[in-house]
């Protein structure tokens, strides 16, 4: 019995949210039922992901492999739950549950009507399911399908508000994201043409044997995949869709989009780069230098753009662009320290940014103010919300004892090991800039003389969500234990492939 559960766990965590997503719309008129179903499914997801992570830790790096339909690997689709998968699954489950908790009783005024709210939840569960799928998939074409489903649900979430600006942002996002997925599909096509495999393990074996015969095709495939995933995960010059999309979406949607959706594409990129090309080919084709350079540019440019914004959600959206830079910078350090830092930074940014967006959403919902300069004295009116926001900001800047610090510390030591002089400097400057764009918000909220501003903390489920995410920031910073362990092992496994 237990063996059956264990061997089927990788597929269950993916199909359960997808399945429930499609039956949700039958209960569209009974919003209470829909909400409790969503929460139940995501809570089950947390349990499943936690169990899977503990299993993976116990099995010492031997992944759990599931062959779809009973067809073994080179022919069938393979789901592999290794350290990287367990790590990302745990993150997806752990962030999507509090964000869903925040939406309880809270969505109808922002989205309008119980039918529209149900649609929001359908898209939400679809996104959660596909992100879980990205964590476990080991098949190139499966990656493409998951990426497309995730993109469509993201665009749907952005346009969940009736506001015309949301429709415009969603359309721009859709066009650029589809351009990205066409590039990804093209890259996958080139790899399939020269290797003849869609399974990443087999394709990688073939590629390491034949890449010298087709250096140009490998170049083109790598370029297509890099630009494609770069558009999807908002790497700096390709980020143009992100600020509009993430700032016009309903706040819980912004939280999940900025926190998790962008990370899903990064995990796919990590898998394609390190599981398929392998670290040797990455260095042969100097991909790591390109990644690191793009990352550094993104950190500086994203932070500077964030400084210039007065609208709270736009500032947070540009901050995501900057934090994406750290991930790419870490991907460019081909060593265990740097990769551990990247993975941990993915986790810590997911928790922090979703908390910040939820806090911003609570403030905007309570006061109707969207600009930072108008949020004078809000800290005294909404103590819990602002406390969560402050903890998130401290984590983002990378103060010790908060989660951002550990990721940045590993990135820093990774880039020093790689012998780069510019990267450590950029990491530190990025932190200073993060303080420069986040701390003024806190100062305005707490220390400027209060005006007649209305507002109070949101309802109980919302408070629980904010407290959970703020606690996550502190726990990841004080006792990262199993999480850091999983990230470290995933990094070693990624580098093990030559």
């Amino acid at each position, binding site marked *: 019995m237990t063996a059956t559960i264990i061997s089927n766990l990788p597929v269950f965590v993916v199909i359960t949210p997808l399945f429930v997503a499609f039956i949700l719309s039958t209960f569209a008129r009974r919003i209470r039922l829909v909400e409790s179903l969503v929460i139940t499914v995501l809570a089950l997801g947390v349990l499943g992901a936690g169990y899977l992570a503990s299993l993976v830790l116990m099995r010492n790096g031997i992944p759990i492999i599931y062959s779809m339909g009973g067809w073994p690997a080179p022919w069938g689709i393979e789901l592999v739950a290794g350290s990287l998968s367990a790590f990302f699954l745990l993150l997806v489950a752990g962030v999507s549950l509090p964000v869903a908790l925040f939406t309880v009783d809270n969505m109808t005024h922002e989205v309008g009507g119980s039918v529209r709210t149900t649609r929001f939840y359908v898209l939400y569960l679809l996104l959660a399911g596909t992100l879980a799928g990205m964590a476990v998939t080991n098949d190139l*074409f499966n990656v493409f399908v998951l990426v497309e489903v995730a993109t469509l649900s993201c665009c749907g979430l952005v346009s969940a508000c009736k506001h015309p600006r949301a429709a415009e942002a969603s359309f721009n996002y*859709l*066009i650029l994201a589809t*351009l990205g997925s*066409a590039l990804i599909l*093209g890259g996958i*096509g080139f790899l399939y043409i020269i290797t003849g495999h*869609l399974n990443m393990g087999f394709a990688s074996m073939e590629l390491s044997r034949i890449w010298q015969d087709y250096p140009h095709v490998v170049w083109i495939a790598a370029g297509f995949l890099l630009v494609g995933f770069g558009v999807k995960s908002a790497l700096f010059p390709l980020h143009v869709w992100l600020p509009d999309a993430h700032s016009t979406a309903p706040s819980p949607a912004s939280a999940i989009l900025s926190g998790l959706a962008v990370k899903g594409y990064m995990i796919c990129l990590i898998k394609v780069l390190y599981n398929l090309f392998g670290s040797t080919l990455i260095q042969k084709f100097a991909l790591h230098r390109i990644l690191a350079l793009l990352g550094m540019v993104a950190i500086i440019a994203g932070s500077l753009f964030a400084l210039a914004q007065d609208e709270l959600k736009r500032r947070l959206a540009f901050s995501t662009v900057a934090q994406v830079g750290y991930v790419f910078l870490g991907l460019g350090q081909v060593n265990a320290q740097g990769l551990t830092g990247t993975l941990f930074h993915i986790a810590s940014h997911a928790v922090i940014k979703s908390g910040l967006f939820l806090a911003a959403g609570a403030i905007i919902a309570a006061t109707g103010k969207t600009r930072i300069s108008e949020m004078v004295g809000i800290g005294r009116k909404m103590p819990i919300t602002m406390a969560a926001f402050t903890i998130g900001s401290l984590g983002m800047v990378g103060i010790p004892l908060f989660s951002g610090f550990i990721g940045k510390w590993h990135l820093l030591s990774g880039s020093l090991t790689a012998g780069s002089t510019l990267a450590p400097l950029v990491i530190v400057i990025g932190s200073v800039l993060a303080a420069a764009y986040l701390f003024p918000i806190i100062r305005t909220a707490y220390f400027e003389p209060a005006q007649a501003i209305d507002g109070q903390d949101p309802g109980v489920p919302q408070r629980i969500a904010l407290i959970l995410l703020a606690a996550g920031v502190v726990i990841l910073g004080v006792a990262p234990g199993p999480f850091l362990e999983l990230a470290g092992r995933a990094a070693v496994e990624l580098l093990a492939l030559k």
Partner: protein
Amino acid sequence: MKILLDKLIINYPYFAAVILFLIGAFTVLTRSNLFKKLIGINIMESAIFLMFIAAGNIRGGAVPILRQSNPEALYINPVPSALMLTGIVVSVSVTAFALALIIRLYQSYGTTDARRIAEMKREVT
């Protein structure tokens, strides 16, 4: 030169795919009409589909249905065709969703021109 030309003639579906892809990408990035952008996306995706299908094709190959009478016959590779079936479904759903968004944009702005919409948005804020 002759070798290059020979390669071009033998691999003509790939060159057609590249040209189609460039036409599509150019349309998406330079046109401001939302419908034309969407058509560009569709052309681009068709180019990728063409590339896949051409990769699976074997000249003179039969339909990949295994027959008892001649199990030795040359078959085309069915995997890319099956993949592109999925790809076409994805592309259709993207098109449908984008059209729905265009309808909503037309209802609120009264135009399907991206530049006009951006101007109107700037006037409001």
